[in-house]
C-alpha cells in the first residue's frame, strides 16, 4: 500500500492488507462501542433516553448532564457534583502511585543488582501478593487502620494502595533491571558511587519506559479502585469512584442516565488521558522488559 509497508519483513499481498485493515477497523468499532454509547447518551435529554433507542444520535443536543454531573448533581445530601471527589482522587492517587512506584523501583534494583541469599524467595512472596483477592483483606485491614488511627482518611487509603501495589511495581522494575547490565553498577561502584547514588544517578535516569508502564498500571488500578475507597475513605474523603457509584447506583430513586454517563466519562477522564497520551510508552516499556517476566 505504501512504500513503508513494503519495507516490512513479512511481505503481504495487497488483498491481504486490505483484509487486515478491515479487520482492524471492525475491532476498533467493537472497542469503541460501549464508550460511544456513553458519549451519545450523555448529551441527550433524559426523556430521549427513557423512551428511545440507545444507539440513536440525540435529536436535541445538550451539555447540561455534564455540567450537572460535574458541579451540581446530588452526591449524598450535598449537591456538589463530582468535582470535590475528583480532587480527593487526585490527592490519593498521586502519592500512592509515587510511593508504590518508588518502592517498586528500589525493590527491583535491590532484587537484581544486590542479590543476596533469599532474594528470590522474597521476590516470589512479593509477586504472589499480586494475586490475593482484595475482599479478604477488608476486615483485618480495617482493624489495622483503626489501630493506626488513619481509618477513614486519605492517608489510610494511600497506605492500602501502596501495600497492594507493591507486588506489581516490584515485578515491573525487577524484570526491567534484570536486563540492565551489571557492569554499569560495577563501574559505578569503582567510581565510588554508593547504593543510593547508583540508583539515583545511574538506574533511575535510564528507567523511563518502565516508569511509564508502572505509573500507568498503578494509576489505573488506584484510580479505578472502588472496594478500598468505599470501605476506608467514604464520606468527604471518598474518591471519585465511590461518589460516581453514589451518583449512578441509587437504589430507590429516579435515575438520570444522561447525568450518570456524563459522570462516568468524567470519572474515567484521567485514566483515559493517561492511556491515550502514554499508550505508546506502554508498549515500549513492556518491550523493555516486562514481557520477559
Amino acid at each position, binding site marked *: 500500500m505504501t512504500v513503508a509497508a513494503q519495507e516490512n519483513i513479512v511481505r503481504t499481498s495487497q488483498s491481504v492488507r486490505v483484509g487486515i485493515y478491515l479487520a482492524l477497523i471492525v475491532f476498533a468499532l467493537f472497542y469503541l462501542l460501549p464508550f460511544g454509547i456513553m458519549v451519545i447518551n450523555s448529551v441527550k435529554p433524559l426523556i430521549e433516553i427513557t423512551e428511545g433507542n440507545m444507539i440513536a444520535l440525540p435529536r436535541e443536543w445538550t451539555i447540561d448532564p455534564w455540567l450537572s454531573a460535574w458541579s451540581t448533581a446530588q452526591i449524598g445530601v450535598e449537591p456538589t457534583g463530582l468535582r470535590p471527589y475528583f480532587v480527593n482522587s487526585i490527592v490519593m492517587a498521586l502519592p500512592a502511585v509515587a510511593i508504590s512506584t518508588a518502592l517498586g523501583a528500589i525493590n527491583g534494583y535491590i532484587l537484581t543488582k544486590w542479590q543476596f541469599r533469599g532474594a528470590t524467595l522474597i521476590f516470589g512472596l512479593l509477586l504472589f501478593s499480586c494475586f490475593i483477592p482484595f475482599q479478604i483483606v477488608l476486615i483485618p485491614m480495617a482493624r489495622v487502620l483503626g489501630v493506626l488511627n488513619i481509618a477513614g482518611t486519605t492517608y489510610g487509603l494511600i497506605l492500602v494502595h501502596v501495600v497492594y501495589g507493591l507486588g506489581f511495581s516490584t515485578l515491573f522494575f525487577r524484570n526491567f533491571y534484570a536486563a540492565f547490565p551489571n557492569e554499569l553498577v*560495577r563501574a559505578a561502584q569503582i567510581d565510588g558511587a554508593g547504593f543510593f547514588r547508583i540508583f539515583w544517578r545511574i538506574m533511575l535516569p535510564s528507567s523511563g519506559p518502565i516508569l511509564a508502564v508502572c505509573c500507568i498500571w498503578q494509576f489505573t488500578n488506584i484510580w479505578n479502585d472502588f472496594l478500598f475507597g468505599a470501605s476506608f475513605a467514604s464520606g468527604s474523603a471518598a474518591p471519585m469512584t465511590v461518589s460516581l457509584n453514589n451518583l449512578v447506583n441509587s437504589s430507590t430513586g429516579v435515575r438520570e442516565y444522561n447525568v450518570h454517563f456524563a459522570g462516568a466519562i468524567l470519572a474515567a477522564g484521567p485514566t483515559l488521558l493517561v492511556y491515550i497520551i502514554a499508550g505508546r510508552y506502554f508498549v515500549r516499556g513492556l518491550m523493555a522488559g516486562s514481557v520477559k517476566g
Partner: protein
Amino acid sequence: MGFLNINGVSKSYGSLKVLHGIDIEVEEGEFLVLVGPSGCGKSTLLNLIAGLEDITDGEILIRDRVINGVHPSERNIAMVFQSYALYPNMTVGQNITFGLEMHGVSKKERKIALDEVAKLLRIENLLHRKPKQLSGGQRQRVAMGRALVRNPDVFLFDEPLSNLDAKLRVDMRTEIKKLHQNLGTTIVYVTHDQIEAMTLSSRIAVMNDGYVQQLGTPKEIYDNPQNIFVATFMGSPAMNLIPAIVRALDDGTVAEISLYDGSLEHLPFGRADMNSWDGREILLGLRPEMITDEESADRKSQNIARIKNRIEVTEPAGSDTFISMQAGGKSIVARMKSDIDVKPDQVFPFAINMDKAVIFDPVEGIRIQANISS
C-alpha cells in the same frame, strides 16, 4: 614485595571452588595479562582485585596495603569493562568525570582532568554526546578515559577489545600498548585472545580451571610452555602435539613418529637426554614455524630433522602458507613462506627444527623437564 600482590587467593561460590590459591606478584609499571578460556577464573580474579566480589581465602595487597574488604572505590583502581559500561543517561564528559565527582573533586579540577584525558584520547569533540551516539571504538576510548582520569594505582581491563571488529581491535591494541608505554601505569588485563596477550603484556598468566597454569614473559610462555594446556592455548595455529615413541638408538635417542603412508621416521632429540624414556610414549610439541622447507630452516639450529610427507591441504594466509599433513596419526600444521610452490597430494621434504621441540608426558600433560633443550 611487588606493587600488586595476590597471595594464595581462593574464591568459592558455595561448594564450587573457582579459584585455587592464586599467587601472582605484579611490579609497578608492569602489564600483566590474565589469559585463558572462558570459565577459567580470570574475570573472577579481576573482580577480586577490583573488590567487586569478596575474597574467600588469601589476600590481595596494593602498595603493601591489604585491600581485602576495602570498598572498590577506596582501592585506587580503575576498570574498563567489556561492554564499556558507559552510563547511558550521561554525556561522555559526565561519564568520564563521574568518578571524580563521587570522590569530591571540585568542578574546576574535574574540567582540567577531563580536558587532559580527552586530548590524550582524541575525543575532545565527543564530550557532549550520549554513549548511544558513539561508535564502538569511540565508546572504547571513553571507557578508557573514564579509567585514566582517575590516575589510579592499577588499571583493570576486562576483555576491553572483544566487542570491536577485527580492524579496530588491532588499532586499539596498539593504542593501549602506546598508552602503557607513555604513562607507565600498572595494568592487569583479562582476555581470552592469546594474540592480545602476547602483543600487549610484559607478563602473562595463563589460567585454566581456577589455577595459574604458567606465569611468565610472552617469550617464556611461547617457547617454554609448562604443560600441554599452555602449549596448545598460546599460539596460532596451535602447537602441534605429535604422538611419538622414544627410541634409544646407537647414534642417539630419537622420537619415532608415523607418517602419511604408515612409514616410521626418527627425529633425533639432539642434546636432550631422553634415555630414561626409552620405549615410552611422549607428545612431541612442535610449533608450526618449526616445520618448514629446507630453505627456510633456522640456520642457527644445531639439530634439523628431515622428513618427506604428503601434503593434504594448503592454506595461503598472505604472509605465510599453512600446510596440513598427517603425522603420528594426527593432522599437523606447518608454516611455510607464502611463495612456496606446493600442491595437495604432493610428497614434499620438510625440515624440522628439533632444537626448539618440547616434550610432554601424555599421561600427566606436563613438560618433561629433562629435556630443556638449550
